[in-house]
Structure formats: structure tokens, C-alpha cells
């Protein structure tokens, strides 16, 4: 057992050592401009992406965008929203997306950093907001993204309120971003939190879940660490009205969750079939 703990501790150190500090200069507007038309076309055809209410985001200055997260380790909501934000405000407006450490260090995903993806940490988020950027964060993270597909329209940030303190300290508004469709890109069967605990991954790699799903091309997919081919589910995203941050963390958190859940309920009511939309 001690040997396993040592190996996990070694793995944790290896991952942490590779988590890049938020080098905001890695975002490359020219690269985004090059990729945007073609990738938007693919997203539009494959996910029939529909993003509404971008005009609710303050036109200038830093803002914390808080979303509900779906789609396992291949979350189309982040992808689609990033494309929409860059199209709407132009690639010139700095915009960063916070992702799990493992995504930030994944060798094949280095190109994401050119789109403004940085590892999720309070320091990185603060750095990005202080630079005047818009920052997209998914507080539910790996916990929410692995929920079972039959809870696909439930917003569950897992009680994580760090984003409220972050917004208050940076004196920026919070804009909730509700989305549906991501949890229909595979059949997610459960979070596998027990598996994460048994394997001690919760302590070693900050992984609270080892999700179990049925996904292409694997069939039964344990952990989703290698990703999967998402089903072409229709992705609909709605930006909500900005929320002022007060001193009461719990009240702001509740307001954000209520706003997200109302948005998800509204979008879910428009859906006739899973995947098809």
C-alpha cells in the first residue's frame, strides 16, 4: 500500500511540475483568426451550435463567465462558447478559459493554449482578470462534467464557491452561461467517485471522479482519459444577465446556480429529443 501511495505521490508531482503557469502571452489572436471560420463551420454542422445572449456580456473590461459544464473530457460547451465569444467580440478581446490541470498538460492539446486555455487555479484566474480579460470558468469541473446522462439538465457546481471570492477580489461582475446538449455526446453512467477514492486519485491528481460511460469508439469507457468521439448532439448556450457580487458568498453562489438552472430548464424545454435537439 505504501508503494502505491509513493507512486501516486510521484505522479502528482510529475503532473504539477508540468502544469504551466498562466502565460497569457501564449494566446495567439492571429491563430484564432485563422482557425475560426473553418472550426465554426465544423461546429455549426456537427453540433448545430446555437449561442444566444452574447450581448449580455459587458462590452469592455474584465468579466468572470461562470458556466455549467458537460461532456466528460471532451466538453463541446467550452469549445463552442469560445468560438462564439471570439466571433462576437473579435479575436482582439482577450479571453481565457480555465481547464483542469490534466487538460492543460495533455501533450496533444497544446494548441488549446493558443485559444487562451490556461490551467484552472485562483492565481491564474486572478492574473487573467487583472490583465483586463474575460475569463470562463466551470466551477463544477470534473465533478459536474461526469454526472450521469439522466441528470443532464441538472446544474451541480458541487458547492464550489471559490469563483465568488475571485470575482469579489477582482471587482468584476459574474455572468452565468447556461448550456445544454453536452451530456448527450455519450451515455454517462456515473461519476465513479468510489473508483477515484479506491485508486486514491482524489488525493494524487485532484480527480474526484473516474467516470464510467458508453462512448465511441471505446464502448465501455472508464475514466475518459483518452477522450472519446462525441455524438453530434445539438449544443445550445444561453448567456444570462450579469450578477453583482456582494459580501455574502452563499447568496451569490445560490443566485448564480439559480440563474444557470433557470437557463438550462428553459433550453431543455425546447428540446424534443436527446442528441437531435
Amino acid at each position, binding site marked *: 500500500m505504501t508503494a502505491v501511495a509513493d507512486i501516486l505521490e510521484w505522479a502528482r508531482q510529475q503532473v504539477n511540475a508540468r502544469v504551466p503557469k498562466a502565460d497569457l502571452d501564449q494566446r495567439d489572436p492571429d491563430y484564432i483568426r485563422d482557425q475560426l*471560420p473553418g472550426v465554426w463551420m465544423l461546429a455549426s454542422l456537427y453540433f448545430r451550435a446555437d449561442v444566444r445572449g452574447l450581448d449580455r456580456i459587458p462590452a469592455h473590461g474584465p468579466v468572470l463567465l461562470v458556466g455549467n459544464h458537460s461532456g466528460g473530457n471532451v466538453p463541446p460547451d467550452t469549445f463552442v462558447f469560445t468560438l462564439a465569444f471570439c*466571433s462576437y467580440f*473579435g479575436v482582439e478581446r482577450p479571453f481565457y478559459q480555465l481547464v483542469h490541470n490534466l487538460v492543460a498538460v495533455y501533450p496533444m492539446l497544446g494548441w488549446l493554449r493558443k485559444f487562451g486555455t490556461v490551467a484552472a487555479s485562483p492565481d491564474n484566474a486572478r492574473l487573467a482578470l487583472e490583465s483586463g480579460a474575460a475569463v470562463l470558468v466551470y466551477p463544477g469541473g470534473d465533478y459536474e462534467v461526469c454526472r450521469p446522462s439522466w441528470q443532464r439538465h441538472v446544474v451541480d457546481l458541487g458547492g464550489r464557491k471559490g469563483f465568488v471570492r475571485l470575482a469579489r477580489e477582482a471587482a468584476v461582475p459574474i455572468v452565468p452561461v447556461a448550456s445544454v446538449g453536452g451530456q448527450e455526446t455519450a451515455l454517462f453512467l456515473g461519476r465513479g467517485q468510489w473508483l477515484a477514492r479506491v485508486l486514491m486519485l482524489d488525493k494524487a491528481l485532484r480527480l474526484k471522479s473516474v467516470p464510467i460511460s458508453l462512448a465511441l469508439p471505446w464502448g465501455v469507457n472508464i475514466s475518459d482519459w483518452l477522450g472519446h468521439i462525441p455524438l453530434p448532439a445539438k449544443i445550445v448556450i444561453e448567456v444570462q444577465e450579469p450578477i453583482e457580487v456582494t459580501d455574502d458568498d452563499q447568496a451569490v453562489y445560490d443566485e448564480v446556480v439559480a440563474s444557470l438552472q433557470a437557463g438550462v430548464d428553459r433550453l431543455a424545454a425546447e428540446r424534443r429529443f436527446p442528441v437531435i435537439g
Partner: protein
Amino acid sequence: MRVERRITLDADRDTVWKVLGDPDTYPALLPHLQRWEPITEGPPRVGSRYTVLWTIGSIPVGGVVEVVEFDTARDLAWINITGVTQRGRFRLRDAGPGRTIVTFRLAYHSDGGLLGLIADRIAAHQVGRSLSESLKNLQRLVEP
């Protein structure tokens, strides 16, 4: 890609120019317009800038446009200075007494190599339809 549509209107050039020469009327004129905000102040002229966003399918396309030609009752042209490379033009010419031919032209080019090229081709059909709808809206606004 260059897309062009034209229409002959039963209105003189000055009447048509009252609409086309006032970009504040464009939200009523251009279909699928998601965002239209003047950036510069004062009446429209060469150098006036606007933030413009159209939707092509579900894709928002646009950026900051700058008026580069403002020839009263003849030509109004603009270019995009951010976003997809684009050049647009309204061209007014006489078509007999009290009649005007209006040409609406849009030339655009997406970056991104082959995918950009395919995106341009796919968008061409809807861009053409948007130009036609715009001219029909213009017709409703200027013809008695």
C-alpha cells in the same frame, strides 16, 4: 468570394440615398443583423466606424467596419478592419426617369486555408439570400 445582387427601384436616387446614406437605418434594412453599433460620432462619412455582426446560419460573422467611400447618391463602400476580411458596396445608378438600379456587393475571404475556403463556399448561398432580402427591404422602404 464575391456575391452580388441588384434590383431596379421605382424611386429616384436621392430617395434611395436617404435610406442607404444613413447607416442608422441598416438594422431595419439588413436581415440577420445581430449587432449594429456606431463607434464614431457624427454623420456618416469616410472614416466612420461601426461594430457589425451578421449571423450566417448559426455563425456570427463581422467585426469593426470602416466606411471607405461615401459618394452622395452614387456609392457607399466599406471594409472590415477586424474579423473576416470583407468589402461591401451599395452602388446607385439611374435607370430612367424616377428609377434607380441598386447593386449590393459583398466580397469576403475567410482565413484558415482549405477549411476557410469551404466555409466561404457554404456561406455564399446564404449571403446571397441576405443581400436579396436587404434589397427587398429597401424596396419596401423607398417605393410609394
